[in-house]
């Protein structure tokens, strides 16, 4: 009998885990190449002209020499396939190129902006899980009123759009009560509202999924046997039922990381936060190919890491998986 939710695998299990991770890394590299390629051609197929975007759009007045020099500088005078080949060659050697629109190396843009986004994503994920677990453990299969209240609250939370929630939180807690700064400053106070704006809808979603499987788990015979051994209700829920119930939520978390980064765009703008979301939006609208691909690659890596972690966590939480993977 293990003492907690996590069951650590044996040495033999670690070897198999290593294999899984290695396969993941290989697949990850292929996914990265594919996403760079798709982004490259998708931006190339979009109508418009990055040179015009960088030189200020239709109401700018660059000389023909300036336009020609810019086209040459960005390598846009070469055939598409050559541009792609050159780009890939640089990418493989670890050079992400220079952003057209931000006028600095893509690597510097990413280095400056990834911290705040990861901070926001991680804190939103933690808070979402905490809120979800409190709601689920506290209200599932209690009395009828409490259960209905919990699942009702979760349904409402899950359906809230993040940008709307962000504006409401701002209006109430920053403009009205003045508990938190309206612009996201450094430090804890500035992180609270953006985190809640992202975490509350996600919490509702995670809780709905977890509640359903917790209900199923609580019906299992082993729960009854645990209860007959004299374990308290909370202990039964935490040690036995929850371990089954969190599995779907864990798989969803990998997807949630991607969706959090996507939703961070609006939240970052609303709270004037630094971050990749705002940068990606600008990069796409200005057809800034190097920067768009750079951000896409980072988000893809974060997603791959998150789903690998979710897989590992899955095995740790549910030892049955370990047996099934040979």
């Amino acid at each position: 009998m293990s003492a907690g939710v996590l069951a650590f695998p044996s040495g033999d299990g670690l070897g198999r885990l290593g294999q899984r991770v290695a396969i993941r890394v290989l697949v990850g590299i292929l996914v990265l190449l594919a996403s760079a390629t798709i982004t490259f051609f998708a931006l190339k197929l979009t109508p418009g002209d990055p040179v015009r975007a960088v030189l200020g759009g239709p109401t700018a007045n660059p000389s023909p020499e300036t336009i020609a020099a810019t086209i040459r500088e960005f390598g846009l005078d070469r055939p598409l396939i050559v541009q792609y080949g050159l780009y890939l060659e640089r990418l493989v050697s670890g050079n992400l190129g220079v952003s057209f629109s931000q006028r600095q190396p893509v690597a510097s843009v990413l280095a400056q902006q990834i911290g705040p986004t990861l901070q926001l994503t991680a804190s939103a994920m933690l808070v979402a899980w905490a809120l979800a677990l409190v709601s689920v453990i506290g209200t599932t299969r209690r009395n009828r009123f409490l259960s209905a209240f919990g699942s009702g609250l979760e349904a409402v939370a899950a359906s809230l759009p993040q940008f709307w929630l962000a504006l409401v939180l701002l209006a109430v807690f920053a403009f009205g009560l003045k508990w938190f700064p309206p612009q996201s400053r450094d430090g804890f106070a500035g992180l609270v509202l953006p985190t809640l704006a992202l975490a509350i809808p996600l919490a509702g979603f995670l809780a709905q999924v977890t509640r359903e499987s917790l209900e199923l788990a609580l019906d299992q015979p082993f729960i009854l046997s645990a209860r007959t051994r004299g374990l308290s209700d909370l202990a039964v829920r935490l040690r036995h039922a929850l371990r089954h119930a969190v599995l779907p939520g864990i798989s969803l978390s990998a997807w949630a990381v991607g969706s959090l980064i996507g939703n961070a765009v609006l939240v970052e703008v609303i709270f004037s936060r630094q971050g990749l979301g705002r940068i990606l939006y600008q990069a796409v609208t200005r057809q800034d190919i190097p920067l768009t691909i750079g951000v896409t690659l980072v988000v893809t890596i974060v997603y791959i890491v998150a789903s690998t972690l979710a897989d590992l966590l899955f095995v740790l939480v549910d030892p049955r998986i370990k047996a099934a993977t040979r």
Partner: protein
Amino acid sequence: MKRILRRASLARGSTALATLFLLAGGISHASAEDVTTPVKGGTLIYATDREPTCLDPHVDGDMPQVFIAQQYTDSLVSQDKQGRIGPWLAKSWTISPDGKTYTFQLRDDVTFTNGEKFNAAALKANLDHIKNPATQSSTAGGYIQQYVSTDTPDEFTAVVHLSKPYAAFLEVLAQGFLGIQAPTALARDRNVNCESPIGSGPFKVVKWDRQSEIVLERNPDYNWAPPTADHQGPAYLDQVIWKFIPEPSVRYASLASGDVDVIESVPPESEAEAEQNPDLKLIVTDRPGNPTNGSLNITRAPFDDIRVREAFIRSADITSALDSVFFGRYRRAPGPLSGVTPFATADFQGLYDYDPDRANKLLDEAGWTERDSAGIRSKDGKKLTIHIPIGDFQGPADRSLWEQIQATAGQAGFDVQLETVGFSDWLDRDSRWDYDAIGAYWNTNTADVLRIVLSSEFIGAAGSGGYHQNASGFKDAEFDKTVAKALETQDEATRRELYHQAQKIVASNFLQVLTYPQSTRLGVYKTAHGVRLEPSLSVTTLYDAWVSK
């Protein structure tokens, strides 16, 4: 210059308050508390909506760049509220009779914040830098396409040669877009200079934390303020924090709570409230140039017919539309030049007046006589449809404004289709002339803007990717001749007469649905004083500003 790529909340017409200020001479000035003595020291926090992508105003050249450049660079010449050119880094100048050679006598006591001396070679380095295609200069470079070379006969004399007479040369030199920077700084990689530019202005750029703020510090040696300034010597403020707060309501709330001292682009819905708030003051001033407008594409049907163009302009009830969208705080533009542009006239505003009867009469005359059950007109079985791409970047207020125009034009029988598109799609349609009307404006401090947005020279001037600054496709020999002649003389009366003629031609050809002039709209918290706008482009300057905290 210009810029379509801005939030609609930036660009506004005027208010009763602003009108008063304008009547008083263009620039609204801090009043009551300016009586008290400025205090030296302290930090002013300034919050704006858009972040520049480069701090060197020569590169590209979008409005956010000139706002920051105004704090750390000086210009060669200054421009006052009446549009007159005065000295700044140049003490005096002479212009050759053929208008192609400008000889500047420069100040000999100016140093850049890196210790470098300002002299004729520095001026040459700046003009050469702007002209160099590798700089990617769209605005400054566009304004001095006539520039050929600079001679430096002695250290503080610069002889600038132009390829043709260009009477607007001094005017554009007064813009912050052509701000003077240290030659060794300009010699660095373009992207490095974007990040850490060096000027001779009252402040120096210390740090740029992207998507967050720029930190500026006082230049303690500054002693060459322009005659438009209220004091001489170094700036009062120790430090300026220049923050980016894109969300309008957050920007305004930060001001109202005193978190920041000054905001740019006060949201129109908050202006009335700001006026009532004793802690706040508004500074609202129009910008010079071609006002916000819908340029009518005259290269294809139906706007190739002047009667249909006039009918469309006459059918648009702009005053009511502005009142409803901007809470009565925006005034209609007086003509193809915004009121604060040198040589602007309101003499032809009547041609843009709302007149639905005339609109209907003109459409009948033009043969658009059949009407369907919805009242939409058609001719030979073809509906009177007007396609207008609206970029998603134009913001909700601009879109609402077009919806109002759509409604009143619909009463005259126009089927106005507002087509929302993304930035790149919008650029694409613009370059292919695939529109009947398209949103435009151009901020610049000279009436020569008429040549840029309406002369045949700019229909395909830049020759690549469909670039055309002349969005209506207007091609008129008399107009071209008039605006070209206006550049050949420095005589004010002659220029006034020629630009009056040019504005008449534009108005009577019905080329643009004029809405509101672009404007700078600052909100100032009670802790900040002496904030003013440099007249050349109505751009914030914090040189005379001080704080009481």
